[in-house]
């Protein structure tokens, strides 16, 4: 890892040995070796990751991997057994935690309270004066396309609209850091686009780091600058999506041929056929030889290095730990 290239995520589960590299302006969130046990169950085991300013950071892992626990520790709802949460290069304090826009997994709104009153309330709780809270409420309701529901009770809204209000509640006080637990679950594609659009905007506009967990890996791949994959409380892989894909794709090549039998094999040393058109090469093998063999077996439709999708990465990394 070189110092001049921005590397906000860590590519190995090892704890960081140097200060996080800053990307752009604004503070960085650093999770440093946090551990948490519930009785005999280890929920988090020395988890470390770094979310840089303006970065959209996807947090993925199987159910029960410790994502929610980690997020609750960042927001201060839970205390870690060890390790620390750092913000702007020093341990986070309660005042800074108050500036976290948090969206809990099981959502949190008063069902019988009016949408506008609710958002104003959260704005004022986070220190806005009443007039600013009203203005911000109007701005966010408008921006999320739910301005016409301002006077309704939350319980009378559709699930998608409730989710928009939930997001508005975490944005209304202009947070400096966003922690969102499964913000996209249960949303239709239009809702997903609206929410991800807003997240992209606030991270770009104000340099707010956004950390969110999701099971929708294609979505994470599409909108995230960086991801962390965790399993059983431990970091399995972390880095930008490109980095991770690069890292895992080094020796796998894609060769699509028109002509040969389905079980065609190039018969080269150091080349393993791992799928119909996928070949894994070891250091001694030359991809050009693979191409030459292919050309003699049929017409080459497509040839190139295979970059696995995040979904495959996820399956691979989780699988190989098993």
């Amino acid at each position, binding site marked *: 890892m070189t110092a001049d290239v921005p590397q906000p995520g860590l590519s190995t589960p090892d704890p960081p040995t140097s200060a996080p590299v800053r990307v752009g302006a604004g503070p960085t969130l650093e999770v440093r070796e946090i551990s948490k046990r519930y009785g005999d169950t280890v929920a988090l085991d020395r988890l470390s990751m770094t979310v840089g300013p303006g970065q959209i950071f996807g947090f993925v892992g199987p159910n029960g991997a410790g994502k929610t626990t980690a997020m*609750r520790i960042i*927001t*201060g*709802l*839970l*205390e870690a057994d060890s390790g620390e949460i750092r913000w702007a290069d020093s341990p986070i304090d309660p005042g800074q*935690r*108050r500036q*976290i826009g*948090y969206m*809990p997994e*099981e*959502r*949190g*709104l*008063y*069902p*019988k*309270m009016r949408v506008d*009153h609710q958002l104003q*309330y*959260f704005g*004022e*709780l*986070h*220190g806005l004066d009443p007039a600013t809270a009203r203005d911000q409420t109007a701005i966010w309701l408008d921006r999320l396309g739910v301005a016409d529901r301002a006077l309704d009770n939350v319980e009378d809204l559709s699930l998608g609209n409730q989710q928009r209000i939930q997001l508005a*509640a*975490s944005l209304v006080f202009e947070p400096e850091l966003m922690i969102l637990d499964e913000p996209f679950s249960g949303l239709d594609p239009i809702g997903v686009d609206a929410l991800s659009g807003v997240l992209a905007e606030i991270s770009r506009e104000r340099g707010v780091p956004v950390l969110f967990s999701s099971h929708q890996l294609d979505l994470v791949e599409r909108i995230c600058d960086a991801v962390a994959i965790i399993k059983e409380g431990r970091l399995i892989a972390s880095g930008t999506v490109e980095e991770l894909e690069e890292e895992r794709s080094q020796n796998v090549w894609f060769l699509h041929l028109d002509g040969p039998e389905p079980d065609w094999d190039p018969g080269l040393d150091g080349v393993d056929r791992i799928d119909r058109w996928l070949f894994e090469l070891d250091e001694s093998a030359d991809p050009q030889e693979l191409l030459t063999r292919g050309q003699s077996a049929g017409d080459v439709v497509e040839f190139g290095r295979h970059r696995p999708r995040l979904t495959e990465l996820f399956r691979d990394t989780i699988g190989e730990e098993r």
Partner: protein
Amino acid sequence: MSSSRASFLAARREIRERLRSRAYRVSTVIQVIAVAAVAVVISLTGGDGTTKVEVGVFAPPGNEVVDLANRAGATVDVEFDARSFDGREAARSAIVKGDIEAAVGRGPTLAAGDIPEDALAVLDRARSTWDLDRSLATAGLPRSEIQSIVATQSSPAERVETESGDGGGGIAFIATLFLYLALIFCGYAVSSGVVEEKSTRVVELIINAITPKDLLAGKVIGIGLVGLAQLLLIVIAGVGTALVLGEVNLPASTAETAALSLLYFILGFALYGCAFAVAGAMVSRQEDSQTTTGPVMILLVGAYIFSISALGDADSGLAVFGTLFPPFAPLVVPARAAAGALPPEQLVLSVILMVIACALLIRLAGRVYESAVLRMGSPMTIRQLVALVGAGR
């Protein structure tokens, strides 16, 4: 943000949401109508404009005095019914039992503590008129002089305390009932509000912004103020109806009862509001809340039973215990005060004990609430609670 600003915001939200809720409006209207109706019924049964007074006659010149009183009383709508008794003591015990309101015969007139003042005045005047008339006539004074002397004299009656104090029994019953209802409604509002915040996870967003103690304080204060306003409305509706109809002779202790009821609602709700908040914080789902609010409810029902028994015998040891035992005092004290049987030194001691109990419980509730409010899952046991608070989080 300052702690008081945070509590203020939480309290304002409770007040605004409570006032918006249909349940609150309906219960307020029903209670106001109920108490006004009670006042109307009392005034209707209290007489059709004429005050009727049962007077015991135990010796001459009782009957003559009652006749005189009826002649004078007709102008002020007071009517006296004479009943014969065998001797002064028999008449006195009838007054104590509440069968009659006054007795005349040889010696000073006897009058119940709660006899209407205008009726007693008429009876007194009749008695002194008869006495003077007789003695002056014996002395041979002319009729005209007798009249003028009689007009300046009076012989006051001896007041006899009745068993039910000065007639505040009805007021005491009503005050106790509405206080009990107010504490239950508001207490339940606190516990269900706490559970709602937990079950919807809203509490996780709020605790992200303000401390659990500020949230607890705001919630109890907000709901308490709304309850106090409701109680004030009920008092105004009851007393106001009685005054407008003008036919009810409110006992002298009414104002004191109303003031004490409001004071003890504040103290009682500080106590019960915190207890209900802790009970709510111990569960995560509305369905489970009865398991933890149950014990608090039992205390409150106990307080009500004690206050009813204190109405029966306001000086009993149980009544004194109820006055000095903070969980019972909020209902027992106003009941005894209304019945006119609360010694001032017991009231002062009761207030001091209440304030101490509130201070201790508020502090304890703050710690318990803080430890329990973010915990999800099955209802907590007392043992878990103690362990959690002991760990100091």
